[in-house]
């Protein structure tokens, strides 16, 4: 008989800080004591500063310990078998940890709780209620439910998901596709990864609902080679779902099939752009396509295609299960529902924080994120990945909302929030933005391909203190050319981090020239 059940994450973030060693040490300590324990490997709850976080099942619910090292495992086991509270690593009831208790977990409801590859646990925790309701509503009403929820794309552009589905549903085509954009290339983001590793069936269900709603028969999940654990878990989940007939020839009811396949990118950031992604799935170079035609009309292999971010698709099951109204009632302005915000970089409490739209940036980084991990002053926050703006503390009152961020010359993107302390050199960050654009450009537009290389060179001159005022003006000019002369947001939005760095942190661009003048 097992005397205790432990949960240890197998999420890549937890593995990266030793979760496997902790699981091994717990098992070894148990066998040394001659007790039988059950070890369940889960996804992560997303409280990464506490990883590896070990949970213990108790009659009153789960309690947590963290961060646990392999060397702590024996003492955690002893405490678990006697007085859990006696462990110095004891964190109390998991759900009562303020960071979790303050969240509204809808899309991430099961992540870190269930065994990611147990379809039984998925169903027991509310899985497949959404698809069941969709099947009773019928395709058209399912699309309208997603429209009514107010769900907008979580990949960056914020386009209403239901409207996209409506277009694909209405488009004539022999074959339609659902493509899940799980390329998650933005620094500071890991929500897609966590879901693939922690609750893969929610994505399978979301894509199945999308297929039913628009009449698609095949789906692709395009993810990154940088995510080997997510790829493995996702593929195993698909195999399990197929064996249970949740995928395959009768996935949408007798005779209505849906097949799903994982495709792996090859280290090209631009393949996160939807049309470059379609090219890549077709086996070509990831060159951005001109629009029109829209992917909704002519997408993958020329057929009508829904392409949505992973979080968009994974939010659909709960919307269908609980109804559009419940989802739409959360949020602010035109940003409805919840957003899994990812707190990263130099923050004391980095992790996944799913909440209704409307928290301010300051709430997120100072209150929830706890300020910097280094203990120094928080000086800049980049929101929305490498194409997102840097915010100074003076703008921390900006609410997390698509429109508010646009108004502040920024974007929320995929919800990544990266903190920097006062040791950051913003001229170097601006240079990096240009360099990144140059490395990742698909090469189709001159302003993006050449402008970014030139931009990095000019910023080098600024950093060296040469003709600073004239060179800053030149960078601003280059940014204007990139913004208006680029086909996609790689060239078009790289000006956001560059110009925000210049505007909000001008002292970092003039320091060298002042030093030179003083000599």
């Amino acid at each position: 008989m097992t005397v205790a059940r432990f949960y240890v994450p197998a999420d890549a973030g937890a593995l990266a800080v030793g979760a496997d060693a902790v699981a091994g040490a717990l098992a070894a300590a148990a066998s040394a004591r001659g007790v039988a324990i059950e070890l369940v490997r889960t996804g992560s709850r997303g409280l990464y500063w506490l990883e590896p976080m070990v949970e213990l099942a108790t009659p009153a619910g789960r309690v947590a310990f963290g961060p646990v090292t392999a060397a702590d495992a024996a003492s955690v086991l002893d405490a678990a078998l006697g007085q859990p509270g006696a462990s110095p690593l004891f964190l109390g009831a998991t759900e009562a940890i303020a960071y979790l208790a303050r969240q509204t977990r809808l899309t991430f409801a099961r992540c870190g709780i269930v065994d990611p590859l147990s379809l039984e646990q998925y169903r027991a925790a509310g899985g497949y209620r959404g698809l069941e309701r969709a099947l009773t509503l019928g395709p058209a009403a399912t699309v309208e439910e997603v429209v009514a929820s107010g769900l907008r794309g979580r990949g960056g552009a914020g386009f209403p998901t239901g409207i996209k589905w409506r277009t694909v549903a209405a488009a004539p085509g022999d074959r339609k596709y659902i493509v899940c954009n799980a390329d998650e290339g933005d620094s500071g983001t890991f929500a897609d990864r966590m879901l693939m590793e922690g609750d893969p069936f929610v994505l399978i269900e979301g894509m199945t609902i999308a297929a039913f709603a628009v009449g698609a028969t095949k789906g692709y999940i395009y993810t990154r080679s940088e995510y080997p654990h997510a790829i493995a878990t996702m593929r195993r989940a698909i195999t399990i779902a197929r064996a249970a007939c949740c995928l395959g020839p009768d996935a949408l009811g007798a005779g209505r099939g849906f097949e799903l396949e994982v495709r792996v990118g090859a280290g090209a950031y631009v393949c996160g752009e939807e049309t470059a992604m379609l090219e890549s799935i077709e086996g070509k170079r990831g060159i951005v396509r001109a629009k029109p035609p829209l992917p909704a009309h002519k997408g993958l292999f020329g057929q009508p295609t829904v392409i949505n971010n992973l979080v968009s698709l994974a939010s659909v099951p709960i919307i269908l299960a609980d109804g559009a109204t419940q989802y739409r009632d959360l949020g602010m302005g035109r940003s409805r529902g919840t957003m899994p915000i990812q707190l990263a970089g130099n923050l004391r409490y980095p992790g996944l924080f799913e909440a209704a739209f409307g928290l301010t940036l300051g709430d997120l980084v100072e209150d929830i994120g706890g300020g910097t991990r280094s203990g120094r002053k928080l000086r800049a926050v980049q929101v929305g990945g490498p194409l997102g703006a840097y915010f100074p503390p003076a703008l921390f009152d900006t609410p997390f909302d698509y429109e508010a961020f646009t108004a502040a010359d920024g974007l929320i993107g995929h919800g990544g929030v990266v903190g920097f302390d006062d040791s950051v050199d913003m001229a170097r960050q601006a240079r990096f933005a240009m360099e990144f654009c140059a490395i990742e450009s698909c090469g189709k537009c001159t302003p993006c391909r050449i402008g970014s290389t030139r931009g990095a060179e000019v910023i080098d001159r600024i950093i060296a203190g040469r003709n600073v005022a004239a060179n800053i003006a030149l960078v601003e000019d280059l940014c204007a050319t990139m913004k208006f002369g680029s086909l996609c947001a790689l060239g078009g939005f790289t000006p956001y981090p560059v110009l925000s760095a210049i505007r909000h942190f001008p002292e970092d661009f003039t320091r060298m020239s002042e030093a030179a003048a003083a000599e």
Partner: protein
Amino acid sequence: MIDSVEWRPDRAAEIIAGHAGTEGAALPILHDLQAEFGHVPAEAVPLLAEALNLSRADIHGVVSFYHDFRDHPPGRHLLHLCRAEACQSVGGDALAEHARARLGAGWGQTSTDGALTLEPIFCLGLCACAPAAMLDGQVIGRLDQARLDAIIDEARAR
């Protein structure tokens, strides 16, 4: 350790044949070839071109577009260091500088003893446990200089 074998055309043909019927099979095939041989040998290009009914130039264009595909074998170990912003915010640049100096190798290069190839990577999704790295496919978070030194020493010894 990078687990790869010498180029064998028959093995490559087998890998390619394994993807018959896959829509847009180029990337899956290239990944499998690289997993097998440690890189995508130039000899594979004509085989792929024939199987996919494309020109050699087309295939070469695909291979060269994607940062992942190498045209020569890596060292005994492969270290990917994250160069992206969240890792920069907690000292990633200094770690990269240190690694390059100790290995005497730049990005994409192998140390002269053949022990380790250093590759840049732009985000591993471990940004809440930054700085991050990947050694032979194993993820590493909260990397610091001592750990990096240990990784390099171990790689050289094995």
